[in-house]
């Protein structure tokens, strides 16, 4: 039998490395401040001409970006922040009420799916309160919203609930998602996929979940994908809109494994 010699890298080495990664991650803000899109250049290798060309292209359409901590929750946090930010800025009561009813319906769905209501409510109530406060004008500015997103009592609960909300949507619309799950993962049921890949905190999400998140919340999202790879000769920024062909209201920058928020010019 072949055995890999593991003596050189023990479990304690592994744990130490994991801790180092975690502490590096924790030094970046959960939701950062807005920055000029020009500063994006430093986030990539300045000598990589292809990437810099793609950034030139982004700069034509976007003026500002906002970082989100890369702890595996970045997509969900960026998404939720963008949705709430729009509610704060536009004070659109119809949209606010719609999002609140999405939350309420998802709680009912989860309870019907057999999830424990009392424990879910710990997370649900924090997000529901946040959206209520936006509706009542108690959270008046984006700065105040940002404060709430980093508050220890709020920051995890709201992300946690979003994960369950998306899970409920995917399980109830299993017919739509199961072909992707079967085709791209080892899971054979929606339940196992959602429990393993989605519901746990810090799990990075894949494209299926990104798509389901937009569908579950009735939000249109545009992703601008900028990586160091040369996809084809045109070297353009790859753009994906969820749902396809819709008019996006929120925008994100996607680098492999990470999402940040973009703001249109």
């Amino acid at each position, binding site marked *: 039998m072949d055995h890999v010699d593991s003596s050189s890298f023990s479990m304690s080495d592994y744990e130490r490395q994991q801790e180092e990664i975690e502490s590096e991650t924790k030094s970046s803000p959960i939701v950062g401040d807005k920055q000029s899109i020009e500063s994006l250049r430093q986030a990539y290798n300045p000598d990589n001409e292809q990437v810099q060309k793609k950034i030139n292209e982004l700069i034509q359409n976007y003026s500002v970006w906002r970082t989100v901590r890369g702890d595996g929750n970045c997509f969900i946090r960026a998404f939720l922040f963008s949705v709430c930010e729009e509610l704060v800025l536009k004070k659109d009561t119809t949209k606010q009420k719609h999002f609140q009813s999405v939350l309420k319906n998802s709680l009912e769905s989860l309870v019907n799916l057999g999830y*424990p209501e009392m424990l879910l409510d710990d997370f649900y109530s924090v997000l529901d309160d946040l959206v209520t406060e936006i509706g009542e004008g108690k959270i008046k500015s984006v700065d105040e919203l940002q404060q709430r997103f980093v508050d220890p009592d709020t920051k995890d609960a709201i992300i946690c609930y979003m994960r369950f909300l998306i899970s409920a949507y995917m399980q109830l619309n299993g017919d739509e998602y199961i072909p992707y799950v079967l085709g791209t993962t080892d899971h054979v049921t929606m339940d196992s996929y959602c429990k393993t890949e989605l519901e*746990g905190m*810090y799990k990075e999400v894949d494209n299926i979940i990104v798509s389901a998140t937009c569908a579950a919340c009735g939000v249109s999202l545009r992703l601008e994908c900028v990586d160091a790879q040369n996809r084809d000769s045109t070297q353009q920024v790859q753009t994906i809109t969820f749902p396809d062909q819709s008019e996006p209201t929120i925008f994100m920058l996607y680098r492999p494994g990470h999402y940040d928020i973009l703001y249109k010019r």
Partner: protein
Amino acid sequence: MSTPCKRRLLRDFKKMKTDPPQGISASPLNDNIMQWNAVIFGPDETPWEGGTFKLTITFTEEYPNKPPKVVFNTKMFHPNIYNDGGICLDILQNQWSPIYDVSAILASIQSLLTDPNPNSPANSEASRLYQENRKLYEKKVKEMVEKSWEEEEENADE
């Protein structure tokens, strides 16, 4: 301690006091709510019947975002339990979800006792016997159950 973690642990405590799963008890140490002692009683009409198995549950500030660490203090003979008491159980690792509480964790471990997962062996001998010689496996388990009584008596003498 972060408020969500503390709030949740107090709720877990209340649930274990008022509505514990059958054959399970758990409670935090007097001076430290992050550290719990638990006892799982072996389910009736199984080789584990009569056993009292002690565990320690250690929480971090990140509970319930991250699972607690759960180890058996009683010596065990089980395909998914390591010699040092560590437990190989999906919900304590990659299938952890913030809606599992102390009650759900211990109930899962209790059902793992009688329903091992031979695909992820932590004790190769137990795993092999479980698959190849169930009679001998059950005999070993029963020996372990009797030992758990001896441990109990030793502790009582102290």
